[in-house]
């Protein structure tokens, strides 16, 4: 009953352009097998394999930055500058997560089981996120989102004898499945409207005027529900605080940067490819890639602008009331999604560069802040703000490093967060979205209050005085994250160049 399709079957040689991803899958399988032979309380084999695999994937990604877009595996996956950027970011996040899980009591404590599988799942999730960043077809969009979600559910419920962890996991499963159901329905409408499943062909169909604008908008809103849940933008954020609070902290750290960045990667690729036409746009002066022109409903950037404002305002205002640091950071991460969405709706190469730069910076500083929580949870057994009282005398260097992360999250100089926000706001103002810039700036001021609540507890609230020594591994990784947070605030040109190259090679903007 079907017409024969032109067979463009993938060949083995496609895998040459898919090395980091292949390495991650092999890592996952090897770590699983190594776990079968792991004995003793600490599964060194799976840990070493997963960490090594992530580092090899990272090295492979850095050494093979794709020059231009290349469609592989039957046109279902595209490897371009954007994918190249994210396949560097995700193995890095995976490696850092694995490192701090190794010394975390929540993952490695005596009552935990399946420690080896945990490391294997981190590698698998990194793979899923890489595919999310390079999916070029509705099928891969759906499947990669699902792979990341499913591994997330398991990792959230990893402390299975803990009521909090299991409850977080159940909430995650329910919200996640509902939004994936909504997204599936939207995808099916989109397929019906255009008759295509590949992003590029969907755009071609839309350009040919084959779809009704209103129906397209409805379908896109449904799809946005699925992607918005991944990045935890506001009407789809309900799971976020509970899951972040209940999940083991290393997992929370991973969730707060990994799937979020992957969700952004997918949103950028999907919306910029299907709803933007490259080339014909007004090329911004000095921009590496031309900016796009909107295809389909003309108002959708405004819709995203509203989403962005609501997201950042809600996240910041609710964060003010939090006393649990994990929950506070959860709301703050919602607020950061709001800032990132500002860059997303600019639809320009410069906006995209700002998003990628901010995602990189955000990954470093947020992982740092969570690592601080993990390291102290190991020693203090809690994560309330009051637990940190007097920390500046008990562990002055650790408190200082946390100060750096907090300043960076607020966006104050001389930290990386300041530079990231500067690029974002510069582009927003450049494109004459003044009201948006004002709301964003006000929100940053609000965020100062709750971040400084943590600082105040550390520096001005008297507490115990006995010196506190952290796990050496934790201290080492903390330094590893604090250093770039400071360094990037002073000298960021190489990273900016790296990001600019990625955007210049992004297929969606005609790179």
């Amino acid at each position, binding site marked *: *009953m079907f017409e024969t399709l032109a067979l463009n079957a993938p060949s083995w040689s496609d895998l040459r352009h898919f090395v980091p991803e292949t390495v991650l899958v092999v890592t996952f399988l090897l770590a699983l097998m190594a776990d079968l032979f792991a004995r003793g309380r600490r599964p060194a084999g799976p840990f070493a394999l997963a960490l090594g695999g992530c580092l090899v994937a990272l090295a492979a990604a850095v050494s093979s930055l794709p020059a231009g877009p290349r469609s592989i595996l*039957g046109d279902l996956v595209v490897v371009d500058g954007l994918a190249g950027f994210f396949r560097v970011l995700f193995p890095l996040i995976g490696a850092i997560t694995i490192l701090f899980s190794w010394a975390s009591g929540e993952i490695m404590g005596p009552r935990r089981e399946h420690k080896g599988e945990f490391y294997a799942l981190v590698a698998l999730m990194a793979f899923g996120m890489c595919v999310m960043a390079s999916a070029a077809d509705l099928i891969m969009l759906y499947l990669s989102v699902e792979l990341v979600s499913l*591994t997330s559910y398991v990792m959230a419920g990893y402390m299975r004898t803990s009521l909090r962890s299991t409850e977080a996991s159940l909430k995650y499963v329910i919200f996640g499945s509902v939004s994936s159901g909504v997204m599936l329905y939207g995808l099916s409408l989109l397929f019906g409207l255009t*008759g295509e499943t590949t992003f590029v062909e969907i755009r071609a169909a839309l350009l040919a005027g084959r779809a009704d604008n209103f*129906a397209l908008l409805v379908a896109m809103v449904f799809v946005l529900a699925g992607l918005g849940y991944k990045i935890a933008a506001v009407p789809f954020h309900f799971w976020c605080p509970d899951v972040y609070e209940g999940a083991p902290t290393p997992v929370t750290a991973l969730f707060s940067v990994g799937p979020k960045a992957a969700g952004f990667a997918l949103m950028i690729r999907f919306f910029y490819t299907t709803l933007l036409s490259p080339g014909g746009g007004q090329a911004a002066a000095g921009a590496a890639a031309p900016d796009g022109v909107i295809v389909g409903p003309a108002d959708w950037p405004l819709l995203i602008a509203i989403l962005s404002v609501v997201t950042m305002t809600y996240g910041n205002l609710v964060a003010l009331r939090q006393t649990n640091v994990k929950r506070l950071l959860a709301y703050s991460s919602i607020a950061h999604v709001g800032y990132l969405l500002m860059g997303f709706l600019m639809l320009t190469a410069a906006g995209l560069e700002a998003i990628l730069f901010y995602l990189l910076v955000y990954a470093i500083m947020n992982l740092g802040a969570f690592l601080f929580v993990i390291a102290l949870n190991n020693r203090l057994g809690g994560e309330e703000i009051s637990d940190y009282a007097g920390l500046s005398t008990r562990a002055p260097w650790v408190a200082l490093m946390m100060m750096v992360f907090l300043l960076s999250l607020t966006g104050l100089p001389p930290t990386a967060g300041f530079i990231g926000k500067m690029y974002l706001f510069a582009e927003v103002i450049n494109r004459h979205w003044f009201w948006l810039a004002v709301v964003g700036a006000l929100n940053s001021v609000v965020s100062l209050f709750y971040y400084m609540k943590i600082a105040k507890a550390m520096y001005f609230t008297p507490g115990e005085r006995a010196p506190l020594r952290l796990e050496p591994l934790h201290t080492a990784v903390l330094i590893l994250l604090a250093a770039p947070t400071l360094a990037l605030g002073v000298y960021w040109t190489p990273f900016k160049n790296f990001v600019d190259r990625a955007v210049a090679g992004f297929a969606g903007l005609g790179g």
Partner: protein
Amino acid sequence: MSGDLAFYGFAALTVLSAFYVVFSRNIVHAGFSLLFTLFGVAGLYAMLAADFLAATQVIVYIGGVLVLILFTVMMTRIPRRGAGGRGLDRFVPAGVFALLLFALLYKVITGTPWAEKAPVSADPTTARLGASFLTDFVFPFEFVSLILLAAMIGAAILIRDRRPAADDGAGGAAAPTGEEERS
């Protein structure tokens, strides 16, 4: 026409049993009602000339997912009141929301000039699908195997009993035994 009649039959079966799943007070009845919904959907696939989908629907959904659900229904042995109030206070807003959304989607569906072609003859699709899974769609095919592997490992991590004495609490401990992990 008999085709029309069959469609309306399957449609009625699907929708009515779906309603029963969602609104029934008894969870066992809801589970069995889901069986009829899934059968109805399988029938719809058959009418859409999707023979392979219809068969897979029966095998995977009814043979797999539904059995899993019914097992869980039995395992969790929810007491009668456990099915819970039906949440009547939520019925009205949710109903209004659903109806509004239905009106919107109905408008979209009927108002859109779908790019449809006249359906061609209903040839068997299995060979075509099999070929495409090993050619064009071989990557998603492999990808799904990873998803299933992840699900398998995940389910094992979540419920495998390694130390039954410590975890299970099957000794009639009705009180929540969730240790708050603060180690």
